[in-house]
C-alpha cells in the first residue's frame, strides 16, 4: 500500500504539477515540459516479482529521490523507466504517452529525451570528449557521421560547445582530451553524467551515481544534479544514501521490498513519515 502526500508526483494529470518544483525560468534557463511517470508497474525475473504496483512521477525542474536498501528493485525500476525493457504490468509514460504503445521510431525519439547514468563504470574506451559526444553523434544522420569521421582523420574535430558545457556542468572540462581509461572512478562517473546531459534530455535518471565515491566527487555530482534541475530537467535519483536524498531532492519515494511504501515532499517523508516501516528505515532501524 502506497502512502502519497497531497503534492506527491503521480497526480494522474497529463500536465506537470509545476507548483511542486523550483522555477528554472526564474534564472532564464530552458524550461522542459516533460514529466516521466510510472503507473502500477510490476516486473519480475523468472518466478519472482521484483517490483509490484509502483506508481510515481518525476516532474520537470525537480529532483525525485527513489530511496531504499540495496536489492529492493531500484535499478530494475530505473531500467524500466529508461525503456530497456517492457514492464510485465503497468505503463511508463513520457509527456503523457505510454512509451510501449508507440511505434518503434517514435519510441526511439521519446527514449532520446531520457538520459541515464549508471552505478557501474560505463565509459567507452576512447577519450572523454568522444564519450560525452556519443549521444550527440548517434542522433546525427549517417552522412553527417561519415563527414565527421573524415574530418576527424584530418584533426578537425574540436569539441563542440555542447560537449564543453556538459563537461563544465560536472567540473571536468579540463579533462576533455584525456583517455577515459585513465580517469578515477569519481571522474569517470562525472563524465558519464556529462554524457547523459550533453543531448539536453528532458529527463535524467541517475542510478546510485555516487556509490563508493569520495566527498569531492559526490559534491560535484550533486551540484550537476541541481544544475540540471535548475534547467528544467526532471531528475530521478536512485540512492540508498538517506543523507544525500535529504540534501538534494525535492520529493522522495521510498521503496521497500519492491513496492513504493510512501512518497511526498522530502522534508515530510523524512520528518513525519506516515508509514512505520519508512520511519524505521529513515532512522536506520530497519535493516534489510
Amino acid at each position, binding site marked *: 500500500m502506497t502512502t502519497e502526500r497531497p503534492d506527491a508526483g503521480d497526480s494522474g494529470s497529463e500536465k506537470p504539477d509545476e507548483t511542486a518544483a523550483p522555477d528554472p525560468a526564474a534564472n532564464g534557463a530552458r524550461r522542459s515540459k516533460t514529466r516521466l511517470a510510472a503507473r502500477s508497474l510490476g516486473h519480475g525475473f523468472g518466478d519472482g516479482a521484483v517490483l509490484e504496483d509502483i506508481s510515481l512521477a518525476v516532474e520537470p525542474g525537480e529532483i525525485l529521490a527513489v530511496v531504499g536498501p540495496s536489492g529492493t528493485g531500484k535499478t530494475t525500476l530505473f531500467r524500466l523507466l529508461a525503456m*530497456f525493457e517492457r514492464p510485465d504490468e503497468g505503463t511508463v509514460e513520457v509527456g503523457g504517452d505510454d512509451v510501449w504503445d508507440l511505434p518503434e521510431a517514435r519510441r526511439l525519439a521519446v527514449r532520446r529525451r531520457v538520459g541515464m547514468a549508471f552505478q557501474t563504470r560505463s565509459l*567507452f574506451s576512447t577519450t572523454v570528449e568522444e564519450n560525452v559526444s556519443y549521444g550527440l553523434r548517434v542522433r546525427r544522420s549517417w552522412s553527417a557521421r561519415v563527414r565527421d569521421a573524415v574530418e576527424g582523420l584530418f584533426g578537425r574535430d574540436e569539441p563542440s560547445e555542447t560537449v564543453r558545457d556538459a563537461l563544465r556542468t560536472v567540473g571536468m572540462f579540463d579533462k576533455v582530451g*584525456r583517455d577515459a581509461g585513465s580517469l578515477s572512478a569519481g571522474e569517470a562517473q562525472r563524465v558519464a553524467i556529462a554524457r547523459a546531459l550533453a543531448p539536453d534530455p528532458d529527463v535524467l535518471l541517475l542510478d546510485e551515481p555516487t556509490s563508493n565515491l569520495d566527498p569531492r566527487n559526490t559534491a560535484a555530482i550533486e551540484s550537476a544534479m541541481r544544475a540540471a534541475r535548475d534547467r528544467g530537467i526532471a531528475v530521478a535519483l536512485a540512492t540508498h544514501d538517506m543523507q544525500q536524498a535529504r540534501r538534494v531532492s525535492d520529493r522522495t519515494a521510498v521503496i521497500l521490498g519492491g513496492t513504493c511504501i510512501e512518497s511526498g515532499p522530502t522534508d515530510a517523508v523524512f520528518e513525519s513519515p506516515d508509514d512505520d516501516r519508512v520511519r524505521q528505515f529513515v532512522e536506520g532501524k530497519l535493516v534489510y
Partner: protein
Amino acid sequence: MFALGDLNLTYLVSITAVSLYVSTAAVALSAALGLPISLAVGFRDFYGKSVVTSVISTGMGFPSVVVGLVVLLVLSRSGPLGTFELLFTPEAMILSQTILALPVLVSVSLSAVQSVPQDLRDAAFAAGGTSTDIALLVVREARYGIVTALLAAYGRAISEVGSVLIVGGNIVFSDSTSFTRTLTTAITVEARKGNIETGIALGAILLALVLGVNALGARFRDRTPGRNGRGR
C-alpha cells in the same frame, strides 16, 4: 639476375603474390561473413546457442585436407558448383581457405564481442543508440580481439598447404610465373626435390610476410586510445 638455386625473381614474386592474394581475399571474405555472425551470436541469447558456439570452435580444428577434398567434390565438373569451372584456380583456393579461416575468425572475434561488458551496451542504449549504433560500439570496444581474430585467420590461411594443393593444383606456367602455386606449396615441392636450403629460404620469406602482416595489424589495433592508453 637474382637466383636462389632453381629459383628466379619472377618465380619468387609470383608465388608470393599468389600467396598474398589468396590469403588476403580469403580473410576479407571470412571477415565479411564472420563478423556479422560473431555479433549476431554474441548479442543474442537463443535456444541452442551453446551448440552453435561449440560447432564454431570445432571448426577451428577442421583438417585442411578434408576441407580440400570437400571443395574438390563441390567444384568438380559433376559437383553442385561445377558449372563455374573454378577448380584449379586461385578462386578455388580462396574458397577452401575461407572455409578454414572462418571458424578461427568467428571463434576469436565472438570471444572478443562477448567480453565487451553489458554495462557499455546499456550506456550506448541509454545515450540514444539504436541496435546498429550499439553493434558498432561493440566492434569498436572489441577491436583488440577482432584484430587478433583477423591476424589468427590470416595466419591460418597463409600457412595452409593441404587444401590449396588439392583444389589449386600447384600450377606454374612455363615462363616460371605461378598460377596456383603459393609459398607453402612451393616449399613442399622443394622439400620433395631435396632442395632443403631453397625450402628454408622460401620459409623465411613466408615468415617475413606473416611478421609484416602482424606488425601492420598491431599498429592499427593500437592506434586509438583504449582503457589503458594515454589519449590526447
